[in-house]
């Protein structure tokens, strides 16, 4: 109960400050009052927009007392491109390539989500092979994204070597993508009704090769970083996110599951043919950085499991149904969501019956995951802020859009 009263007090203080201190002496966005402690030596420091650890043009203003973080305020918008506004002037097919540029590490998921919305509106079915392609590519993308996250996590914590180890396997996946659609990052691959092209003959052998390669190295990764005593000391008990807070901020993905909330769109609101696959949803216990890391490491194992099942059952047949140059959505609003490597991505389309959307809204997982940052870092050291940012696994263009 004590924490509840404390929270209420904090909320009331915030309201009072906003109401009675119009000329707040603190920089924009800071809410906590100045410290009463005369010993406190507070100062502000900008992490970003150009900083090695924000992984993009994110600016986080940190209020520090010595090395201890008092409060952080993220400033967004440095890479705002108006993608949602642009979407209103482009057809649905043209919009697919724009969606690549939201979260470039889950470009396939962005394509997929948009396609699913269009399919839902027009009631287009997908051939079985098309569904298998979708699931396999999605899981490959999840692996690729998590590998990059793992490599960068090590780098953020001061160990460069992990980065190169992760990239060794990530290249295998990128090669598959390159062969598939000619692009490694901004892929523009899925289409309403299936995908733009069938998979090449080498696809299945390459995936098999990747599965065997990754199975071997996942344990090596654990040895290199995740079982290191310094890593454990740096992540255990750091940046604890209680499940209630995670839910109230709308966190999804590994951030939410690290806090022990069992929610995965693939399982709880299944799309495509995920019901036909057997996989577990890894969960954390305490919601600290270590749990988030282990959830992602475990998710890689699960993605491999899905891939293994898909490889053995991969059907032949058509890969796309009802291809059309443009799609005219009937009047109304449509929504669909997928589980990207970072969490729940939703696409909401309002159509006036034209070939272009009247309004297109992306619900990006990164925005919600970043919002919770301040709740997690307060009281920790500056170095922990970087670790926490890294375990949130943010992709900044997805936040600003």
């Amino acid at each position, binding site marked *: 109960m004590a924490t509840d009263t404390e929270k209420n007090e904090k909320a009331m203080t915030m309201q009072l400050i906003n109401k009675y201190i119009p000329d707040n002496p603190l920089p924009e966005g800071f809410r906590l009052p100045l410290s009463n402690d005369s010993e406190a030596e507070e*100062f502000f420091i900008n992490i970003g927009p150009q*900083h090695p650890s924000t992984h993009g043009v994110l600016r986080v203003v940190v209020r520090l007392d010595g090395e201890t973080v008092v409060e952080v305020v993220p400033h967004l918008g440095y890479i705002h491109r108006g993608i949602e506004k642009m979407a209103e002037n482009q057809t649905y097919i043209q919009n697919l390539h724009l969606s690549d540029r939201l979260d470039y590490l889950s470009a396939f998921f962005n394509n997929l989500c948009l396609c699913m919305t269009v399919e839902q509106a027009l009631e287009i079915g997908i051939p079985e092979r098309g569904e298998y392609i979708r699931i396999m590519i999605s899981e490959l993308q999840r692996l690729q994204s998590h590998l990059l996250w793992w490599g960068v996590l090590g780098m953020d914590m001061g*160990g460069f070597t992990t980065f190169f180890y992760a990239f060794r396997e990530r290249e295998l996946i990128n090669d598959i993508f390159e062969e598939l659609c000619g692009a490694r990052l901004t892929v523009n691959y899925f289409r309403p009704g299936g995908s733009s092209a069938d998979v090449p003959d080498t696809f299945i052998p390459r995936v098999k090769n990747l599965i065997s390669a990754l199975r071997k190295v996942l344990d090596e990764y654990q040895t290199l970083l995740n079982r290191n005593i310094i890593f454990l000391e740096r992540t255990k008990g750091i940046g604890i996110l209680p499940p209630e807070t995670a839910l109230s901020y709308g966190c999804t993905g590994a951030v939410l599951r690290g806090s022990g909330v069992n929610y995965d769109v693939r399982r709880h609101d299944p799309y495509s043919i995920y019901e036909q696959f057997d996989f577990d949803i890894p969960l954390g216990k305490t919601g600290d950085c270590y749990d988030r890391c282990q959830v992602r490491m475990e998710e890689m194992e699960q993605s491999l499991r899905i891939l293994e099942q898909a490889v053995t059952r991969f059907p032949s047949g058509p890969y796309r149904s009802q291809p059309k140059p443009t799609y005219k959505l009937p009047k109304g609003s449509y929504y669909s969501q997928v589980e990207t490597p970072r969490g729940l991505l939703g696409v909401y389309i309002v159509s006036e019956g034209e070939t272009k959307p009247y309004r297109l809204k992306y619900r990006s997982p990164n925005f919600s995951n970043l919002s919770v940052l301040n709740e997690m870092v307060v009281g920790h050291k500056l170095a922990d802020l970087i670790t926490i940012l890294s375990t949130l696994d943010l992709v900044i263009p997805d936040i600003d859009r």
Partner: protein
Amino acid sequence: MMSSVEFYPVNNPIGDLVRSIFPEPVAVLINGLLALLSLMALVGSLGAVLIYLERKVSAHFQLRLGPMRVGPHGLLQAVADGIKAIFKEVLKPEGADTFIFFLAPLLPVSAAFLVLAVIPFDHHLQVADPAGGVLYVLGVSGLSVLGILLAGWASNNKYSLLGAMRSGAQMVSFEISIALLMLLIVMVSGTASLRGIVLSQQGTLFDWWIFKLPFLGIFAFVMYLIASTAELNRTPFDISEAESELTGGFATEYSGIGFAMFFLGEFVNMFVSACLVTTFFLGGFFPPLLGVPVIDPILSLIPGFLWFFIKAFAIIFIYMWFRWTFPRVRVDQLMYLEWRIMLPANLLLLLLSGLFVAQGWAG
């Protein structure tokens, strides 16, 4: 006035030659100059060698090849980088303290340079051998932390200041551990002269202090490695540079030759530290199996200074191994490690060694 023989007790043929040609006062001067010049050459070439080595070692740890373009296997990369650094514009941030800002990069290199003067590379390769050599080393190496502190303070940048404060706290703390371990060696070997310490380890490798001091030697060696890694600001203790947190730490605002000097200082200090480990624990310039029939004459064909360099570079490789394997510790964890673990352990070690010496078990 002191004779040149007293001033430079360690004779070598070149020194003798100079003394035979020139009268006494001039010979002191010329010998001193020659010694300093050779040290400068050593520092200059070491910088290039160590930077190349680090890049290659890190590359092979990371499944890469490292520099390959400039010269065969990238051998001339360090030269190219040096030339680039010299020609780059030196920027000074607005509001920086000009004098201190430009003085700071020189201090770490100077510290390394001064310590190198007392390192016994071989029987006859030592610039000076003061009786209190260990004390001199301790005193002089403090200059390098001063350089980093001044750089952080003068840069007028919050990142630099944070880096400098971290580094100051860290290096001052770990210097205590290093001093205690040095004291241990001084106690067991009975001399504070670096040459004397090496001479006290004459014999096979089991006469080196790492093995000669039963059990404790190994502990002392490992602790010295940890403490010196922290003193060198290298991963996992590189919190003062911490590029993922503080962008560049104390060196954020430095460019061109100022940055190159910090870089050089860092690498030469690493060599100095490896030299000290070699001197204290690994028998300095002695071959590993001195006095063993058949093998020793063969090993002794390799001159002493080469043995010294082989050992020192092995230690340097360990430092690099640390750096490219471990993540970084946090600032409070570092302090905890020193004050709550290392310092009590060191004191206990010192106590036990005292007991060993009193009982006559130490060698």
